[in-house]
């Protein structure tokens, strides 16, 4: 017991060191928590602002705001807003008898709409398989002659190279 009460003993100095370490750890933890709170505070505040609900305005202001909101929603939803105009041209186009629809201006769909019928220029590469009035001539082009000539050239080049190798 005397040894414990005596100041300056080894036991007493170890206990003081432990308490100092604990205090330092607390300070460090507090610092980290404060820093984190400081960093996260702006986002938390902004998040609070996003959930802000405006108070109801006067009747006159609502009547002018409603059409604007509706127009914006309709612009965002391009599928529901697409209106079919000139149905006869569309039906003819679907039946393959006319490409008039391609010339109709459609402001609701982008120009590169893949569902739109091809223009005559774009459709030019289409291969004729059945007769129709004004059809292009059937594609009689074949790459076989090209293959034949290329193959013969390669064969000849290989033959020449082999002969040269044998001579050397």
């Amino acid at each position, binding site marked *: 017991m005397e040894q414990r009460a005596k100041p300056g003993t080894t036991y007493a100095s170890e206990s003081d060191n432990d308490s100092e370490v604990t205090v330092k750890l607390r300070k460090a933890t507090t610092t980290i928590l404060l820093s984190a709170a400081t960093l996260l505070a702006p986002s938390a505040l902004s998040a609070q602002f996003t959930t802000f609900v405006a108070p109801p305005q006067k009747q006159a202001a609502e009547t002018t705001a409603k059409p604007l909101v509706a127009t914006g929603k309709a612009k965002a939803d391009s599928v529901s807003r697409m209106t079919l105009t000139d149905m006869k041209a569309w039906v003819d186009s679907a039946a393959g008898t006319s490409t008039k629809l391609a010339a109709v201006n459609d402001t609701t769909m982008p120009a590169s709409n893949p569902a739109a019928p091809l223009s005559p220029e774009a459709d030019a590469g289409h291969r004729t*398989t059945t*007769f129709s009035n*004004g*059809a*292009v001539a059937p594609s*009689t082009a*074949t790459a*076989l002659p090209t293959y034949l000539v290329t193959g013969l050239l*390669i064969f000849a080049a290989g033959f020449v190279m082999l002969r040269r190798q044998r001579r050397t």
Partner: protein
Amino acid sequence: MVTYVAFEYGKGALRSDAARRQWEEQQAHATVNMARERASRGSAGFLTRVAAGAPVARLWIPRIHLDEVVVEGVGDDELNAAPGHLPGSALPGVSGNSVISAHRDRHFSRLDELQIGDTIQTETSQSKGSWVIVARRVVGKDTPALFQTKQPTLTLTTCWPVRYFGNAPDRLILSARPVAGSWSGQVTASAGDI
């Protein structure tokens, strides 16, 4: 590459022979059927839908010594075997435009030698007769070149230029009209019935 080309040409030659044999058998059957029809009803036969690759006509062009059986369809397989009849067009000898196409490196390799005034002969199960070439033109591959006609018309098409390395950019179109008095058999249907 050379082997592949030889294989394709060989396959086309075999199919051409098969089409020729089938054509001859078909002609024999058609002769018997027409005789039966005439005996029973006094009419001259009929036209039915033809499957792709089946022989539909025979084509002679004396000037370039061409004698080929024409098969139905203008797909790769059909054109590799023989000149192809464009589905939906009239058969030779029937009212309307009859369109026959072939590759420039195969059956129509000498089509460029034909000139206005040269004759062509065709034979189907319904009729046989001669044509005279009345127009010869070269059009772009994407240019509309085939049109309906009320009068019987024969149109032959192939790639142009005939001697060309790569895919030919143009088409050679020959139009022919029937030679009066050279036809045997009866025309029984229009192009819309085929």
